[in-house]
Each structure stands twice: as C-alpha cells, then as structure tokens.
C-alpha cells in the first residue's frame, strides 16, 4: 500500500492507483471526461489537472500513479486556472445546443461548465462545423459537434469489446468519431457508448427528443431478456418506457448492457401485445372472462377431481407471481400438477451454480454448447474484461459448432450436442483413468466413438483437472452434463463453477417459489394431459409449441384437454388450441424479484401501467379465488429473501444429491441422409417482439456452412432456401457462418418465426430463386 496526502487528508491505496481514484476514495471529486475505470488512463481531455508538490507543472490525475509520500492538491488558484482553461477550450467549438440536447440536465460538460466555466466566452471566431445526428447504427446517433473527443467510445469498442467499429478520423480540430468505412456498427454492444459518452455526442436514436431529465422518471430494475439479468435503469414518461440504461454496481458490475436489453424495451406497447380477454373467439370484458374461466375450473374439478388442472409457468414473471400461482393452484384449485416451461432438458443443482465473481477470477473457461456472445452477451463482455486483465485465459468450446471467437480465442471440440458429456468423460478417463469416480462416470461411454483424437482429449482432461479456477458456461442442451459437473467438483482441487445460460430467465425464482422446474416435470405433466389425467391447462406465459422441444407431445396434450387458458403478453403459437387468452401485466408493469443465472436476487421496480385489459397475475389469482368463495391473501406471506444472506440464493449442498451417476450412452447417430438441425440461444432473436430492434434482426436467421452457402449461391448478406422436411417444404432465410459445420442447419432456439417449431427431418436445402414474402 502507498500512503499519500490529498488536500491535507491521508489515504492508503494499492500501488499503481491513479490520483483520481485515490481522491475518489476520500470523496474528493476530480473532474474527468476521458478517464473511465474500466478502460484505464488515456490523458486526452486534460480536465483532471491537479497540483503535485515537487512536480514542475500541473499533472493529470488520471495518468499519474500515486507514489509514497506524494502530496496532492486538487484545489487552488493554479489548478482552478488550468481546469478553467481546459473547459474553455472544450467549449469553444461546442455548439450551444443544450436546449435541444437529450443530455441537457445530465451532462458532465454542463456540470463542470457551471462549476469552473466562465459565464461569458472569449471566443469570437466561427465554430468548426461537423456532422449532427449522424448514424453509428440503427440505435445510436452521433453529434460530432458536441463530441469532446474523450475516445471513451472508440476505446470501449476496440479495446474492451474487441470489435473495432468506431475510430477517430481526421486530425486536430477536425477530428471526428465515426464508424469504420462509414458502415453501421454491427456489434451487440454499441449502445453502451451512449452511457459512456460524458456529453451529448452519442445519443440513443429511439430516445432522441423523447424527454428531458426533469420530465422523466427513473426506476431501478434488471433487464429481463436473458438470464444474466443485467442491473439497469428504466426511464419512463407518461406511462411509457422510453429508455433503458446500464446501472453500475460498485465493485461488481460496470453497468454494460447488450443492444437487445438496451433497446428491446418496447414490447409493452408493441402492436402484437395481447390487450383483450378473448374467450372462445369472443372478446369479453376482463371480469366476464374471469367468470367464464373460473367456471371451467370448477367444472373440471367437479367432473375430474382434484389434480385435474395443470399449470405451466413461462414468460418473465417475478418470483412472487410464481409463488401466488403455486398458492392458488394448491389452495384454490387443489392441484399439485405444476411445471415450468423448459426448452432444454438440463438442470443445474444450486450448489454447483457459480457467480460472475468466478469469471473475474477464472483461468479456464469452458463453453458447453453455448456461444455467450449470442446467448448471454454481457457474460461475453465480462469474459473480455477478464481476458484484458488475464491474457492467459484459456477458452474451450465443446458443442455442435465453433463457440470460441476472435474476441475470445480458444480451442474448440466440435461434437454433436448429445455427445458433449461423452467428450468430458473420455477426456477425464484419459487424464485420470485410475480414479474410481472417473471410471464409474465413463463406464458406459469409454468406447463410444468420437471425432476427436485421444491425444487432444487427454489434453482437455488435464486442463480440466489442473485449472486453478474452472468456470463453465452451459446451455442445458445435454442433461448428462450435470453428472460431469458433479464429478469435476469431486475430482478437482480448485473451485469449479457452472453458470447456466438457459431459461426461462427467472427459472431459479420459480424454483425458489416452489414451482417444479425440471424438464421431466413438464414432460410428465403433458403426458398426463395427453392421457386424460389432466383435463385443463393453465399456461402462465408459457407457449408450449414455441418452446417445448417435443412439439408432438405438446400438440397432443393441447388437443386432449378440455380447456386451455393462456395468459400472455403476445399471441402464442398455442393460440389455435387456446380457449381463453388473457392479457397479463409484464415486466416493468409490476414490481417483483428476479433470480439470475448466478442465483442472485434482484428487485425490478414497476414503472408503467399495464396497458388496456392486461392485469397483474395477483389480480387474476385474487379474483378467481373470490369466484371460488375463498379469500386469497397475497401480502407478506412469503419472502424470497427469508433465508438469504446477502443477495445470493443459498448453496445448500447438503440438501442436494451431489453423487455423480454413470453417463448414459447416447443413441446411435440419426439417419445420415438427413441434415442435422442445431439450435442455439440468440438473445436478439428470442421472440419477444420489439419494433425498435426490428431493423437489426436479420431476415436470414438460419445459418449454414460457407461452402454449402456458396453451392446454393447464397449472397453474403443471406438468401432464401427451400427446406424439405418430414412435414413439408419450408422457405427460410439463411446465411453463411464459419462456425457452423457442414450438413448442419443452425436456427435460433426460439424466435418469432413459426417454422422454427416445425424443422424436423430436414432432407435437403434448395436455392429459392424468387423471394417469397414471409
């Protein structure tokens, strides 16, 4: 630790700390523009001038590292003069736009001009004119005149994200920030530059001229679009969400968001939003719809007894809502037939669940089936942060396609999804075959043929065993991986952490509320429905045909039951089978708790009114209970935080069976004449409608190997193909992707295209000459 004095106060900080950070520790504010802790020092803006005793001239606080016994003055006539001078320079070419600038009222340039700037300028010459409201891409605008050239945005994109899409062009006073080749920036993280910009140069296009700081409200929330659950702030005005911003959490989170989370907030008032209560094709009042549906419930219970109603949770509900549904099911309609809508079969015991702190300390990270850039983008950024601090980070991908990338380079083991666990088992057998746990684990799969040579596998096994801090990211596609995780925890000395990237986003919250979350639970429930044991399905945000992989079972179950009641924010694919479609309040419209992929609880505030007839879950539960002549208290009976220290769900290993079981041998490879269809989570394309995001969403969502794309004459941007499947020919848009193996068609796991649900038994892809409108 280094001891120094700042403004007559002593402080001890680690070696290498800059003066501004040391001052911040004392609560002393040194004005800065270019410096950002996540990016490190630059020294460009010169705003942070401070006086250091024994230095001949003023020093920049952001580039000067502290030294033992240093005496720093952040005030004083010389410092004031220097800062005033820099501020005056920044303002000479800055337009007097404040009255029409989105940043007005929350702008560092205004704040510091108020503090240091002269009331009147001495600059009488013409200001340099540059581009105003030029595009960075569909979401971000740049006003080059307002830019103070702090380079935060350029450095964020090139150094932090690793995608060099912004640059400085020109030099001297003509320097501007622009995109490479003046092409739109395509990264998933471009929106962060809006938060990073200390002035009004980088603006959110959808928020442009929508509000000023004094006529908006801000709510603390989390992003509901993927299991990362990024801390964020929601800006609302007139009961509309009009902006999402990152919310930095000190020492834990920089407040980055992906563009999906930052700009996809408009599903609440999307034209597809379910606003009316529709019962058997008729639009009814909400009260009438509730009476009708309650009547069905009574009828079902009367005729088929308790347990004849099945409830499936999906969507983005809060843990509290899940609890109320469970309570309603058990106490009012007397059923224990509950499940969570799952789109992959995997399950992760909570005691294996890692946190993002594991990413900050990891030396080896393994992607099992998941590409974090597409599925959980901010985890990708967290890994970028890690690799910047720890360039030796080993990145390993195991899955049906290439999962490492240019920004997170590493080694890939490309195998079929169903063989993923076998790769690990054989790797462990080769590296530590004399261990009884390993022998037991690999008992059935030791001789299973894999397309990876044994030398490579052995290296993988050794890497897995010897890594000091192993972090694994898992998409849940291969349920056998649970045994691998359990075995690794036993075999390894260092910490083993697993981060599940599958949904629904709040599945841990549902689990905590008492709703069964395993895939098998849902499967059993649907089988009972198909077999006639369950006669009514209540689908709370769940869209079976869109998300449940066994579509045939889902369809048969929906057809078999007498009634399907579906509470949704958008029309489900189940709609043809739905007897009552009820509009329900969404994220942002009710307050509640979410548990993210770390098992960390966060509270999302409500900011806007549910539109039209959409009502909170609570209202439905209380209303139905009343129709059953029951009182239904929803207040203060259950508290998610009850047994929690801090904000993490307890890792109660004692309550879980942590003994690994032998892996099941995968079934032999499917029909070789068929194309393999692989699915991956793509958060940008996850089906929750957003008009703002539409320009970014590619029409060509399918992906194939570049050679095959060439053979089909698919242009670089993508083209349409006819896909011959077992259930007819489907026209879909595809594009070439180097990460996809041959004879493989990749599609998003869920999306707003209905055909995604019916891609079975793909025999052939054929080029489609004329473009069919979809």
């Amino acid at each position: 630790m280094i001891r120094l004095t700042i403004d007559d106060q002593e402080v001890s900080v680690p070696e290498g700390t800059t003066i501004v950070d040391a001052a911040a520790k004392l609560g002393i504010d040194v004005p800065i523009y270019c410096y950002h802790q996540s990016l490190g020092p630059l020294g460009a803006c010169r705003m942070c001038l401070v006086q250091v005793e024994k230095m001949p001239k003023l020093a920049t606080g952001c580039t000067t590292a502290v030294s033992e016994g240093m005496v720093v003055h952040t005030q004083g006539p010389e410092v004031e003069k220097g800062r005033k001078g820099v501020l005056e320079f920044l303002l000479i070419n800055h337009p007097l736009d404040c009255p029409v600038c989105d940043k007005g009222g929350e702008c560092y340039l205004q704040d510091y001009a108020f503090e240091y700037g002269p009331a009147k300028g001495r600059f009488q010459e013409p200001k340099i004119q540059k581009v105003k409201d030029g595009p960075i891409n569909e979401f971000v605008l740049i006003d080059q005149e307002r830019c103070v050239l702090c380079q935060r945005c350029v450095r964020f994109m090139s150094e932090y994200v690793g995608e060099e899409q912004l640059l400085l062009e020109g030099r001297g006073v003509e320097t501007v920030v622009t995109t490479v080749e003046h092409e739109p920036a395509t990264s998933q993280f471009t929106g962060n530059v809006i938060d990073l910009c200390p002035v009004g140069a980088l603006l959110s296009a959808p928020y442009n001229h929508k509000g000023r700081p004094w006529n908006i409200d801000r709510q603390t929330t989390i992003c509901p679009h993927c299991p990362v659950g990024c801390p964020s702030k929601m800006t609302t005005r007139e009961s509309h969400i009009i902006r999402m911003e990152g919310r930095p959490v000190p020492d834990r989170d920089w407040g980055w968001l992906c563009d999906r989370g930052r700009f996809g907030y408009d599903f609440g008032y999307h034209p597809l939003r379910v606003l009316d209560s529709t019962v058997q094709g008729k639009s009814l009042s909400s009260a009438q719809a509730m009476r009708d549906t309650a009547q069905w419930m009574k009828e079902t219970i009367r005729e088929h007894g308790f347990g004849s109603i099945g409830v499936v949770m999906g969507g983005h509900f809060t843990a509290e809502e899940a609890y109320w549904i469970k309570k309603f099911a058990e106490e009012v309609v007397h059923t224990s037939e509950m499940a969570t809508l799952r789109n992959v079969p995997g399950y992760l015991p909570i005691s294996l669940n890692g946190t993002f702190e594991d990413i900050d300390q990891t030396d080896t990270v393994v992607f099992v089936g998941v590409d974090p850039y597409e599925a959980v983008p901010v985890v990708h950024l967290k890994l970028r942060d890690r690799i910047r601090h720890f360039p030796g980070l080993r990145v390993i991908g195991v899955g049906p396609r290439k999962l490492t990338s240019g920004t997170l380079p590493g080694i890939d083991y490309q195998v079929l999804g169903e063989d993923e666990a076998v790769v690990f088992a054989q790797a462990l057998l080769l590296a530590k075959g004399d261990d009884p746990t390993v022998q037991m684990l690999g008992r059935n799969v030791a001789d299973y043929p894999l397309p990876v040579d044994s030398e490579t596998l052995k290296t993988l096994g050794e890497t897995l065993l010897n890594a000091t801090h192993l972090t694994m990211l898992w998409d849940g596609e291969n349920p056998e991986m649970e045994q691998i995780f359990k075995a690794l925890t036993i075999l390894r000395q260092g910490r083993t952490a697993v981060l599940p990237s599958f949904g629904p986003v709040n599945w841990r919250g549902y689990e905590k509320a008492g709703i069964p979350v395993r895939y098998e639970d849902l499967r059993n429930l649907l089988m009972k429905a198909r077999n006639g044991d369950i006669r009514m399905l209540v689908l709370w945000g769940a869209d079976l045909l869109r998300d449940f992989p066994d579509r045939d079972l889902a369809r048969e179950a929906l057809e078999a039951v007498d009634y399907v009641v579906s509470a949704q924010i958008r029309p489900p694919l189940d709609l043809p089978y739905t007897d009552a479609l009820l509009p329900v309040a969404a994220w942002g419209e009710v307050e509640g708790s979410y548990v993210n992929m770390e098992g960390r609880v966060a509270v999302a505030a409500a900011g806007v009114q549910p539109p039209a007839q959409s009502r909170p879950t609570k209202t439905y539960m209380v209303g139905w209970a009343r129709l059953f002549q029951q009182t239904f208290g929803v207040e203060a009976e259950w508290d998610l935080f009850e047994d929690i220290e801090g904000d993490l769900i307890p890792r109660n290993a004692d309550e879980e069976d942590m003994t690994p079981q032998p892996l099941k041998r995968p079934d032999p490879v499917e029909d070789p004449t068929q194309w393999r269809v692989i699915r991956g989570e793509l958060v940008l394309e996850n089906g929750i409608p957003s008009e703002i995001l539409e320009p970014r969403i590619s029409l060509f969502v399918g992906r194939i190997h570049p050679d095959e794309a060439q053979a089909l004459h698919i242009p670089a941007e993508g083209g349409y193909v006819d896909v011959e499947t077992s259930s007819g020919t489907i026209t879909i848009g595809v594009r070439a992707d180097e990460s996809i193996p041959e004879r493989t068609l990749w599609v998003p796991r869920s999306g707003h295209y209905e055909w995604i649900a019916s891609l079975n038994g793909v025999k052939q892809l054929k080029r489609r000459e004329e473009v069919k409108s979809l």
Partner: protein
Amino acid sequence: MSQQYYLLRNREVPNIDEMPVYLAHGGYQALRKALNDFKPEELVDMVKKSGLRGRGGAGFPTGMKWGFLPNDGRKRYLVVNSDEAEPGTFKDREIIEHNPHQLIEGIIISSYATKAREAFIYCRGEFLFGSEQLKRAVREAYEQGFLGENILGSGFSLDLEVYRGAGAYICGEESALLESLEGKRGNPRLKPPFPAVAGLYGGPTVINNVETIANVPVIVTKGADWYTSMGTAKSPGLKIFSVSGRVQRPGNYEIPLATPLRTLIEDYAGGMLPGRQLKAVIPGGSSVPLMTPDKLDTPLDYESILQAGSMLGSGGCIVLDDHVCIVGATARLVRFYREESCGKCTPCREGTYWMTDVLDRLEHGLGTPEDLDTLADVADNIGGKCFCPLGDASLGVLVSALKYFREEFEAHVAQHACPMGERLYDTINN
C-alpha cells in the same frame, strides 16, 4: 572561415549514394572497425564518452538512452526517426537523399552496440525521393552483406526496413512514431513506460534521429576524444544547422557546437540579403522562441541558447529580416501547429485553432486590444498542460513575438491593417 566537413564530408562527391562510390570513399570502414575491434558495450561506452546528444531537438544524451534498455532477453528494436518535418529544418533530408549509406552504416553500428536485431527507418511521408533512395541503399547493403545474417562474418545479424509515414508532423514525436510504425493512428502514447522499456510492439526500443545516428560512424572512426575536443563540455561535437530565410547562402552548415550565431549567419550563410536588416532569428526550428539581433553573439550550444531565452532544437535556423511582418510570420507558424495537432488532447487541439483564428484576424487588421491579452492567456492555458510537446512547441514563436514585438501587434490593431504593407502572408497562404 574554413569549413571542415565530417558528417557532410562527401557532399561534393557525385553519385555518393551508390554503393561502389561510397565504398571508394572509405565507406563501411567504420562498420568493419566497430565489428572487429569493439564489443557492443565498448561502443555504448564510447558514445557515452563522446557526449553525443540527440540531434532531433531534445538533445538527450544518446549513450545514456542506449543504456536504459533493460537486459531481460526480449527482442530489441532500433528505430531511426527520419520524420523531419519541423519547419526550417532540412538537415536529415540532405543525408538520406544525398548520402543514405552513411546513415545505414550508422544504423548497423548502433544496432550492434544496442544489440538490436531489427531496425526501422521511419521516413517522413513527403520524402518520396528520400525513401526511394533509402530503400535502394538498403537493398545494396543487403547485397553487399552489410545487412542480413552474420554481417561480415561477425556473427551479428540485422534486418533493416524503410517505412514511409503518411505525412504527419506528430509522428516525429517518438511514441506517435511507434504507433504509426505499428500501423495505428499516429497519436502519442502515455509515458511511462518509455520506449526503452516498452516501445515498438511492446519491446525495448531505441529511437534516434538521423543526424544522431550519422554521427556514430564518425565517432567510431575518429574516437570519442576527438569528438569532445569540439564544442563545450556539456555540448560537445558537431551539429548541422539548416539556415533559411533572408540570407545570401541558405543551406546546411556543419559547425562545431558553441560557434557564435553571428558566425553562422554572417560568415557561413553570407550575411543578410543586400539592403536588408536582421529582425529576428528562430535558431532551432519553428518550435523555439525568437531571438532578437542583440543576442547574435550567443554561442550555438544547448546551454547558452537556453540562457538566451531560446532553444537549440533541431538546428533549423530561420532568419527574418525587416521586411517580414512578425504577426504574419507568427500566424503562419501557429497555423502549421493547428494543422498538425493530432487532436488527442484538448489544449493543443482547441488552443492552436483559437490562436490561429485570432492571429489571422490581427494580421488582417481586424483585431482588438483585448485580443493580445486573450492570446497570451490562451498560450498560458496551453503551456505545460498538453499531452505531448507539440502544444508547447506551438507557443515558442508566439510568446516570444508577443514579448519582443508587442508594439508591432499593437500597430496592427491601431491601424486596422498590417503596417508592413507587403501582404507576404497572403501570398504564402494562397
């Protein structure tokens, strides 16, 4: 006046840029001597002893710079700064265009001394002919076995590459030069770490000016004692001065340091043009303060010039006569820095723009009395607050002009016109 040339000794020899001619005139003998008779450390000691100081402008002792390289086994680089873009300076240009082999010989010796295995010449973008000359000479040196593997059987190997910049003054600043050489935007880097520790591609790097490197073979041939016999104790040896402006014989003159400024202008450069009076001298390139005629007897060494209120800089000596409007000349020079500012730091980027506009206004008779105070204050807000030396460099002439020729500025304001009448400034700018 007896002109004795060492660095420019072959300037009258036709085709000295060709290998056979250079060899016939004793070329690469210093290299043989260095490789045969000296260990690398002995050469570093010799350069340290010679007191050779960087000729690019800063005057940092070369031997000391070489001594900063850490001994940690990483690959070392030698980079020659040939980005000579300082207005008024054209000494390096003569060496690389006229006698490139002398530079290459110096590079090989210096690389041997600093144990660099790869060397680069970063050539100014505008030096198209110069870079072609260098490339050809490098090719000849490879063919002759002076470059490549196992040079002259010594076991020492060196690769040398010529890289032409894209035309930016800022790339003469060593860290911006490295950025540009790595293919990035030529912005200066944060120091520390200094290039000796983390330079080109993060490796230990020596960066020296062309003239500095060209001194090395001469020192090897004639010895450090010979070198220190010239100049002063702190500023020993020889320096090339580029004299330009209203003198009879503008050009490059190689003189021992501590020669009086008067000798350079009146003897070597032949004095002022007929009928013209000396008004001011910028002795070290456009970045240094003006000197008035009463300082004409100042010896041209680093310390004396500093004492006289200016700097030796790169040795680009610009002579202004009584027909030159100081305001116009200042405006022109400040405009240069406005054009060449990289834009990274605020005071330099915005300040040079502001000063240029005010000076333009003043020159055209549109100034106000407050402008002079504004100019002085803007200069004060730039001075010492910029990221790299370019911002300070833009102030040298302006601050000294305001100090010594304030009445000329005031006359522009009072008469609402340039009192010199002659619109030289406009002629230059159009």
